């Protein structure tokens, strides 16, 4: 059977379970007709002075936004996780889901006037694959056996193994399309809605509208300026005084204060990002699933969401999928704080006075230390002693995470379920160094492979449901919370339904928003 994955079908496929997650005012906003003009100024929280416009390097919010102002992917992820054809007009997979053919959009040109062709796609993807590439997209593309152009408008990907989720991969951060042979990435040449005027890393960027933008009904602003603002209060002050029109990473404490006036609107979006305390299942005492269960039962998730996330998040259920994922299983009962039951499991494991060390710092997420301290208090009621070990913030990922048997972690959302399960919970993940719990369960490995081959949505849903259940019951990770994205926006700015992939409307605010 050949599956034609055009937008309608895909929308049906993926959008069916999409929840109305954006809590802001999508209806009123989208009812208006977009108006062109004005300068949008955004205060960006996440940036670095050392960043460039090389698609293979780093991954800050600032960079993502700037890339998507200047460049396009083959596929765009819309609100509710819908895949929208971008530079690819359509795509289809072979029956065995190993060959994927992308048909490219015609008549698109780069900012420098060069027409967009299949060679550009192949060059752009190869940037990540070439020897010595540091790209975070590289593991995602590891499954690609070969790429070839079939005329200027068609690109064919041959995969090593079947993967029905491959098209979604092309929407990933980093897989922006740049002109064939481009080496000076800081010129910012792309096919995007804006053309680069000025870029000073760690300070700001200015772009102006691309008059020849191929996408209809997008990129409404004359210019878009992004300003790097590390300090949350500075961002709030700048918005309050009208020096900027929007900013991301709102300090949860100030949300209610920002909402006092009526000039500012808070955009709160449920995200796929989760916080967890992973335990290595191959290290004592976590080799016993009873111990792991006891640890999972001994944490009061509600308390942490309320106190560490100031309520801007939701409780996790010890598997990596939030309701923002298409294949989220609502059937698995929510695990609750139950010290008595935890004691029972401990007794069963013969570890009644369990003492463990939890290695944390605020590097994985702000408040990780607080969360650990709260966890320590919760667990004490189950007779578990947690010694919170405060590790240096710098070097946390290299010397603590995935090295210590019990630590803190954060995972931002991934394009689809396959990526997160294969990357973090499979045997392949152990090889690649991403499997922080060292879970090596044959059932998991098999289910991940099966799901990749399964075109039928409902069957896939069942497979992923089983995966979630296994990780929930037997996995090593104590996934206690999903965070929300909070942006603050001036009421002058209008927009449609918001995407939950990243802050600022999936990092595409510049293209999607307009001034009322």
């Amino acid at each position, binding site marked *: 059977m050949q599956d034609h994955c055009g937008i309608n079908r895909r929308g049906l496929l993926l959008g069916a379970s999409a929840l109305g997650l954006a809590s802001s005012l999508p209806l009123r906003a989208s009812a208006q007709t977009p108006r062109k003009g004005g300068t949008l100024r955004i205060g960006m929280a996440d940036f670095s002075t050392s960043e460039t416009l090389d698609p293979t390097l780093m991954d800050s919010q600032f960079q993502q936004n700037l890339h998507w102002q200047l460049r396009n992917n083959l596929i765009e992820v819309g609100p509710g996780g819908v895949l929208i054809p971008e530079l690819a007009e359509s795509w289809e997979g072979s029956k065995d889901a190993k060959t994927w053919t992308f048909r490219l959009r015609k008549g698109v040109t780069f900012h420098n006037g060069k027409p967009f062709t299949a060679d550009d796609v192949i060059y752009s993807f190869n940037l990540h694959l070439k020897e010595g590439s540091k790209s975070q997209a590289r593991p995602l593309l590891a499954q690609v056996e070969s790429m070839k152009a079939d005329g200027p408008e068609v690109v064919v990907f041959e995969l090593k193994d079947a993967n029905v989720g491959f098209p979604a991969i092309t929407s990933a951060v980093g897989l922006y399309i740049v002109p064939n042979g481009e080496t000076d990435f800081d010129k910012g040449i792309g096919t995007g809605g804006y053309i680069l005027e000025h870029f000073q890393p760690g300070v700001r960027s200015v772009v102006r509208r691309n008059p020849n933008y191929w996408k209809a009904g997008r990129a409404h602003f004359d210019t878009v300026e992004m300003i790097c603002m590390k300090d949350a*209060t500075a961002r*709030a*002050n700048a918005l309050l005084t009208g020096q900027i029109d929007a900013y991301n990473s709102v300090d949860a404490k100030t949300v209610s*204060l920002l909402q006092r006036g009526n000039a500012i609107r808070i955009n709160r979006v449920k995200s796929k990002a989760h916080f967890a305390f992973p335990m290595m299942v191959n290290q004592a005492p976590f080799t016993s699933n009873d111990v792991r269960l006891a640890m999972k039962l001994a944490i009061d998730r509600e308390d942490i969401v309320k106190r560490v996330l100031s309520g801007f998040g939701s409780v996790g259920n010890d598997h990596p999928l939030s309701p923002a994922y298409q294949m989220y299983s609502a059937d698995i009962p929510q695990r609750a704080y139950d010290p008595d039951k935890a004691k029972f499991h401990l007794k069963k494991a013969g570890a009644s006075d369990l003492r463990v060390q939890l290695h944390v*710092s605020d590097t994985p997420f702000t408040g990780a*230390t*607080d969360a650990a301290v709260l966890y320590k208090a919760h667990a004490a009621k189950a007779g578990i002693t947690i010694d919170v070990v405060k590790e*240096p913030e710098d070097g946390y990922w290299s010397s603590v995470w995935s090295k210590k048997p019990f630590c803190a972690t954060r995972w931002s959302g991934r394009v689809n379920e396959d990526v997160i399960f294969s990357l973090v919970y499979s045997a392949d993940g152990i090889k690649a160094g991403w499997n922080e719990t060292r879970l090596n369960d044959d059932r998991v490995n098999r289910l991940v492979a099966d799901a990749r081959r399964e075109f039928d949505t409902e069957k896939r849903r069942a497979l992923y449901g089983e995966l979630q259940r296994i990780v929930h019951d037997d996995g090593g990770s104590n996934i206690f919370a999903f965070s929300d994205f909070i942006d603050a926006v001036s009421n002058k700015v209008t927009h449609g339904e918001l995407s939950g992939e990243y802050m600022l409307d999936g990092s595409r605010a510049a293209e999607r928003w307009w001034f009322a």
Partner: protein
Amino acid sequence: MNILGKLNRAPLSAKIGIGILAINVICVLFAPWIAPYAEGQVVGDPWAPGLVGAPEGDLAPTTLLGTDHLGRDVLSRLIFGARNSILIALLTTTISFSIGITCGLLAATMRGTVDQVLSRIVDVMMGFPTLIFALMVLAILGSSIPVLIGVIALLDATRVFRITRAVAMDLEAQDFVEVARLRGESIGWIMRRELLPNAVSPLAAEFGLRFCFVFLFIATLSFVGLGIQPPTADWGSMVRENAAAISFGILMPLFPASAIALLTVAVNMIVDWAVASTSGVRNDN
């Protein structure tokens, strides 16, 4: 002379200073008994107004100074904060003065190479931006309270060294030190018994200032994410955590900031008086 009599004759500023200090000391000693709530207890909505600064006609608030960003009682946290802040500042200043004074006296007594080496080391340390130095050390060693104390103490010690050295150099030129040298006394004895007792008064003034700057430095470090880690209450962090509220017209962060300022002013008033009364300098003309 008896202390009470001396106190009685102290100028008004010194009396005010002593009063403020006494209140702080009581907070340090008896925090759990006098604070209305526990250190981390959530008592209301975030930034709820207290009796002070509540808009008229509002329901009677349950707290005196309102609540902080997590809804904890500000007064209680101020009282507990006094304990942490003051003890940390005291410990830090004590360590920095021990190091600074020892090295300063050593440099002044030994002169020559020892003096040159110590002075150049201090030059180098002072040539480093303080905050950057702290950032790098804290990045290497991790931001725990002992490391924090050590880093600030070391940085402050450079200043103490300079002052001690200058004072001790003057003293060292006095005949009584020469007498001790001629007697054959050891360096240690000269430092401890001849120089130190006479250097106390100028150093006391510095102690007052340095003591207070520890609060500020910790607050600044926590501003860049390296200070005292929550949920420990300390004044600097309280200012930092709640500073954002100022933009919204909420005065809560003023309370811990004022606590720091008050203590600073108080300590310096006392020090000014102590220095003036021991050195006997008067200004009547």
